[in-house]
């Protein structure tokens, strides 16, 4: 398939303005004739549903949780970036654009990223107008902080709960529209399939999670805001319900899945402590500002940290990266932690952790100063682990955190299927191969509040509102397939639980398609996943019935899709014979062990097209063109 990114021509800073003017408008009287289906109620979905309803469209909004307020955007801690330059420290739209492009290792579109940086300022204005209680200075102006190694203070925050507050802002705007009747909310519904007609999205099939009914919903456009696929690894910082099903079903209906191998692994998470562990908890990476990362010099050193003398500790980040030390980017810090553990130098019961030590910082600055900076994080750590970080070093280990890959979309955020738009983490994003801290919230809200309200009009202006009714044959056929799938899962009645398979899939991907990858491992993983999938369909045990609230069945459906999707990730990783951002292929590294890009051959988005069950997907390439930035090699020595 030939990909057309539809990036407007003209100078970078004028593209979006020009495009907005060129987009056709929908007559206000006609807007009420159109129904837009929005799946997901996170920052992207909630803001999109609210904004589209405000414009006059009829919106049907779906979420799997009991309330739209619970989407996983709520868990983002750190903050949201914007190029306001309130701090007067040299920030600008261009700088935010450049930092984002460079941070993403030059694997994103210039046009999209520039638009994101432009819109970032409107987001802050909008959120304040909604009543988001951002942190303030004494004088009442908004406070900013520097985040994730950025050299400017451009991050707006609401304590450690920025995601929650932004989501509640979008949720309140959405609630207002639900109250006014413009949005019809369908909570506890899971999208099981996309309905298309002549490569045009005309509706969705959902399962009512309360009673198991399969429901059919027709719309003039479908907007997917279903988040990332980090849970393919089983253990991640994602919510338990986060899944790839909606995006993957769209892929199987003709949307392309781009760069699925780009996953971000966050270095400072609380380590795994047992097989029963269900999720990983992230701690702000600001901890690395004062904490020193180390592992014992000797393999299998099981002494308590305080019994390991200074000379037998290896402050490996400081040793390897003298100028950046403990503040190297996320991917570098993560990879090094894994390397230590792989060498048998990991600490803790599982040997899958390294120390993050505040001893020296406390000695230098006093306990009070450290408490003031990190008190809440230390308390959180102590709550989970029952260890006191003031007394004994924290143990940390990397965890899957964010996925940059997603459904391929053009500049209008429309996928390869007409009328199917994809927003937020669910699309292959503006973050390229690696996302900077405090940028996920920015992108979700940019897409929902300020991009889709324009671009969906451009699409709907070209179609007539006489939508295919949900009673049509294509809907009933699709619904029938969905119920057959659930019935099949229930009928296997094997001997292993759904979680059992999910955990095994996660381990395969973590091992072979995690922080660092190599061809041999990836090939092995591909076979292993295929085997596991086969075993799943022979031996999975899903209790209960379909016409009931059945959480095992919900999980089974998601894991079934993860089992297919995992293979796609591996396929993508195998194809990308370079290292960049979240994709580190061991065969491609600098002498210093850094990611070595191959801009000659891989400066493109790898968008995968589904070609049929059991068949290899087709690779479609969208080359990235850089007219405004120079491609450089990262170095943190």
């Amino acid at each position, binding site marked *: 398939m030939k990909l057309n990114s539809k990036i407007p021509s003209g100078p970078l800073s004028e593209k979006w303005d020009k495009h907005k003017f060129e987009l056709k408008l929908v007559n206000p009287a006609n807007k009420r004739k159109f129904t837009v289906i929005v799946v997901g109620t996170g920052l992207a979905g909630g803001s999109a549903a609210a904004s589209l309803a405000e414009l006059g469209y009829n919106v049907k909004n779906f979420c799997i949780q009991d309330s739209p307020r619970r989407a996983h955007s709520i868990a983002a801690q750190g903050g949201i970036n914007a190029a306001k330059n309130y701090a007067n420290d040299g920030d600008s739209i261009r700088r935010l654009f450049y930092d984002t492009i460079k941070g993403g290792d030059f694997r994103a579109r210039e046009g999209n990223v520039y638009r994101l940086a432009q819109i970032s300022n409107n987001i802050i204005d909008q959120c304040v107008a909604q009543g988001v209680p951002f942190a303030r200075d004494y004088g009442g102006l908004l406070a900013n902080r520097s985040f994730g190694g950025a050299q400017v203070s451009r991050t707006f925050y*609401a304590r450690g709960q920025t995601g929650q507050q932004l989501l509640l802002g979008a949720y309140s705007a959405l609630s207002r529209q639900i109250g006014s009747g413009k949005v019809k909310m369908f909570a506890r519904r899971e999208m099981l399939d996309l309905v298309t007609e002549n490569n045009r999205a005309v509706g969705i099939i959902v399962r009512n999670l309360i009673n198991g009914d399969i429901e059919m919903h027709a719309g003039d456009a479908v907007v997917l805001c279903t988040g990332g696929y980090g849970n393919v690894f089983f253990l991640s910082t994602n919510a338990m319900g986060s899944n790839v099903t909606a995006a993957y079903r769209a892929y199987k209906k003709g949307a392309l899945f781009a760069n699925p191998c780009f996953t971000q692994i966050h270095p400072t998470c609380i380590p795994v402590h047992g097989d029963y*562990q269900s999720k990983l908890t992230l701690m702000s990476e600001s901890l690395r500002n004062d904490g020193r990362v180390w592992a014992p010099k000797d393999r299998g050193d099981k002494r308590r940290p305080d019994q390991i003398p200074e000379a037998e500790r290896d402050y490996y980040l400081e040793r390897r990266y003298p100028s950046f030390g403990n503040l190297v980017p996320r991917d570098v810090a993560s990879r090094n932690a894994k390397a230590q553990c792989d060498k048998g130098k990991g600490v803790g019961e599982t040997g899958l952790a390294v120390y993050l030590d505040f001893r020296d910082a406390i000695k230098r600055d006093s306990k009070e100063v450290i408490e003031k900076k990190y008190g809440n994080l230390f308390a959180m750590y102590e709550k989970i682990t029952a*260890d006191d970080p003031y007394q004994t070093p924290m143990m940390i280990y990397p965890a899957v955190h964010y996925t940059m890959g997603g459904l391929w979309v053009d500049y209008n955020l429309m996928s390869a299927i007409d009328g199917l738009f994809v927003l937020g983490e669910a699309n292959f994003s503006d973050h390229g191969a690696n996302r900077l801290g405090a940028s996920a919230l920015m992108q979700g809200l940019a897409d929902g509040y300020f991009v889709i309200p324009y671009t969906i009009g451009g699409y709907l202006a070209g179609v007539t509102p006489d939508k295919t009714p949900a009673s049509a044959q294509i809907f009933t056929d699709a619904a029938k397939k969905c119920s057959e799938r659930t019935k099949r899962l229930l009928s296997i009645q094997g001997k292993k639980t759904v979680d059992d398979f999910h955990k095994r899939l996660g381990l395969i991907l973590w091992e072979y398609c995690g922080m660092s990858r190599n061809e041999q491992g990836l090939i092995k993983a591909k076979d292993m996943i295929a085997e596991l999938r086969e075993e799943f369909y022979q031996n999975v045990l899903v209790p209960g019935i379909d016409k009931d609230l059945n959480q095992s069945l919900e999980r089974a459906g998601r894991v079934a899709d993860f089992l297919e999707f995992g293979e796609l990730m591996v396929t993508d990783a195998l194809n990308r014979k370079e290292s960049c951002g979240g994709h580190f292929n061991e065969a491609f590294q600098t002498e210093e062990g850094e990611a070595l890009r191959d801009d000659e051959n891989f400066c493109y988005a790898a968008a995968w097209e589904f070609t049929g069950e059991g068949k290899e997907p087709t690779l479609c390439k969208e080359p990235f063109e850089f007219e405004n930035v120079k491609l450089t090699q990262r170095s943190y020595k």
Partner: protein
Amino acid sequence: MSGTNRINLTLKVWRQKAGKSKGNLAEYQAKEISTDMSFLEMLDVVNEYLTLKGEEPIAFDHDCREGICGMCGAVINGRPHGQEKGTTLCQLHMRHFKDGETVFIEPFKAKAFKNIKDLIVDRTAFDKIIQSGGFISANTGGAQDANAILISQKNADLAMDAAACIGCGACVAACPNASAMLFVSAKVSHLTLLPQGKPEAAARVTAMVNTMDDLGFGNCSNERECEAECPKEISIANIARLNREFIKAGFFKS
């Protein structure tokens, strides 16, 4: 993870079939539970065991498992989210339980929170209250520069204290009267404390209180159980603020 232990517990879990109005406490054994587990991970282990035994696992709501989404919650030994202060159920760890203990696990109970199945209840009443007025009517796009509105740090902090509510419903579960006042007051306070929220303050508080009443929540009698059990430790000073705003709106605004 110092001092990891394994403990055995007897669970008395509320089981209620979907669509039925009655349920009962069923007894299960939770064996070899690591004290590092969270309460929900303990339930996961029990569910895996039940599944393999051919029994239906216990249905319970949960999502983020880091104490922020507000989806989880059950009454543990008579205490919503368990006995630890300022903690959601997903952040309650098994080290707070003793070996051999009997643990009662019941769903949140209130007329306004209908039971859906086992430990899952319907909290859409909270959404309905927000829909009736828990917002600032600011359409996308019309906002002025964010720094054009000055908000004292004190008020921003107070608003944030109230806005920290995760909407889990523990306040309703804890209240002897199943009142939703802490939840409603948190939202009213958050928006009233900010200058952006002032224009709609009177209409908002009236609409939200009336909706709350219509949905069948009880009346607040200032027993302070909500404040004691709130996982985000929202203060009842917010309830006083709601009362003040309601009285102001009712008697002094036309």
